[in-house]
């Protein structure tokens, strides 16, 4: 068993980044995730592993530094919060188009606009439906604990390099700011130059005599080729949908009703199903761990077993649309959520379930 530490979610992401052998982090401060770059700077990762940490002049510059380093075959990450992620969307679209692996972290805050610095899940659409311009997706992981914040960094790199795609860790201020027990892993070495050449033969690290030059671009002015490239991306997303769906089921076996919630909302909903059990109401929780790909098959199957489904999100109702698509009208589906940085309480979730689903 690895060493146990009490860490904030933001710190866990940063420590994991160092320990899994990240080559570079480029970021720009924004509440509530500035601890990530602060922690990295304080840890002197250039001394620990040779990892580069650089505070960019803007989110726009940061994501383009990520784009450059990722194109050059390096393990690279950035993090931000909602308004900063909006600024990064152009670069993310470029990376999806150029098929570059990288790890992104969005510690979501309430919007729209400058909004609030309090927690929210209002960036669901932006995360799973593309976000920037063009037809693309990225894999989205939603940790619900500080341990998952730590573990998902390595998972994200694995997926990012396997599929040559940006992977987003979508979280919020609750998970980012809370402290929990974390088991940290052993330090892994960064990739050597030889490993980079082997693992990323497509990358730009200098044209060798025995190969054609490598070009990283998302541009193709030939529409027929561009359409082919889009088809190629879609096939990749289909493969991801087939193979990479992750979720957790709690008390779903004999549930009469189902809550669907991710991240911090899932934690709150877990307490809510305990409160329901005390009242004699059998409620299960399905927690999507990947938001793209979405566990639509499992939710569809659950719709055969329960009388109604409540989507619990800290937003105006975003994931509920994907649940509705998955359920295909089999049972009533409703949304409950607080907004603007207000975190719903377990009691509010129970009341919403009683009013919107059980009594509805």
């Amino acid at each position, binding site marked *: 068993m690895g060493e*146990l*530490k*009490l860490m904030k979610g933001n710190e866990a992401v940063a420590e994991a980044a160092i320990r899994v052998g990240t080559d570079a982090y480029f970021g720009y401060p924004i*509440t*509530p995730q500035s601890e990530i770059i602060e922690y990295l700077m304080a840890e002197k990762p250039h001394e620990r592993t040779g990892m580069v940490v650089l505070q960019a002049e803007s989110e726009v510059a940061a994501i383009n530094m990520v784009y450059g380093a990722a194109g050059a075959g390096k393990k690279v990450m950035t993090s931000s919060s909602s308004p900063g992620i909006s600024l990064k969307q152009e670069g993310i679209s470029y990376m999806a188009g150029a098929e570059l692996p990288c790890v992104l972290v969005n510690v979501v805050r309430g919007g729209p606009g400058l909004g609030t*610095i*309090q927690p929210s899940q209002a960036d669901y659409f932006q995360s799973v439906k593309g976000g920037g311009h063009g037809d693309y997706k990225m894999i989205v992981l939603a940790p619900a604990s500080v341990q998952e914040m730590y573990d998902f960094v390595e998972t994200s790199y694995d997926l990012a390099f396997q599929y040559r795609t940006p992977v987003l860790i979508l979280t919020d*201020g*609750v998970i980012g*700011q*809370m*402290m*929990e*027990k974390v088991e940290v892993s052993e330090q892994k070495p960064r990739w050597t130059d030889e490993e980079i050449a082997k693992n990323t033969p497509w990358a730009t690290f200098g044209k060798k005599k025995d190969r054609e030059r490598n070009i990283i671009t998302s541009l193709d002015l030939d529409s027929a080729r561009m359409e082919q490239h889009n088809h190629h991306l879609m096939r990749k997303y289909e493969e991801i949908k087939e193979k990479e769906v992750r979720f957790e089921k709690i008390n779903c076996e004999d549930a009469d009703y189902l809550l669907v919630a991710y991240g*911090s909302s899932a*934690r*709150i909903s*877990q*307490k*809510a199903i*305990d409160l329901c059990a005390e009242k004699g109401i059998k409620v299960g929780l399905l927690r999507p761990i990947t938001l793209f790909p979405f566990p639509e098959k499992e939710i569809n199957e659950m719709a055969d077993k329960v009388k109604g489904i409540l989507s619990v999100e800290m937003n105006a109702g975003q994931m509920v649309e994907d649940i509705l698509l998955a359920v295909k009208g089999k049972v009533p589906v409703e949304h409950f959520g607080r907004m603007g940085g207000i*975190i719903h*309480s*377990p*009691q509010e979730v129970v009341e919403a379930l009683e009013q919107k689903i059980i009594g509805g």
Partner: protein
Amino acid sequence: MTEEIIIAGFGGQGVLSMGKILAYSGIMQDQEVSWMPSYGPEMRGGTANVTVIISDERVSSPVLTEFDTAVILNQQSMDKFESTIKPGGYLLYDPNGISRHPERKDIKVFKIEGAKIAADLGNTKIFNMVVLGAYLKMRPIVKLENVILGLKKSLPERYHKLIPLNESAIKSGMESIEEVA
């Protein structure tokens, strides 16, 4: 066993670090813990509060609206959190600066003259450790030896020389807590 605690006071009273030491102590005796601060502008100069949960089982919601125990260190927090304590729960407060004392009859109320004791010990910075000691006397959910281990884990190495001082502050708190009702 699950203990859900809110610790609330002014920024600068060491509320967050008291919670952190308590959480670390839980880890030291192999329990599950969570530490959830209120964050943002209110942390600066205004009130600060932290929810700490220590449990034998996986912690579900880190965000709560009712608590087993409240540790209250200023009047604003008294106004905000007295009503959130579950019936049969515990309230610990420092009467220094409190104009309206607790009114609930369905909970157990204790007080600790934390500010005064810390001043008497000659170091106002150990105020939160005095309060922690009082809490541990009232709710002995973690052992003192594990609290000392937790202190070691949460303090940077260069502050380890201060551990004996902290330990004596905790003991003063344990000795000085008074049951009010």
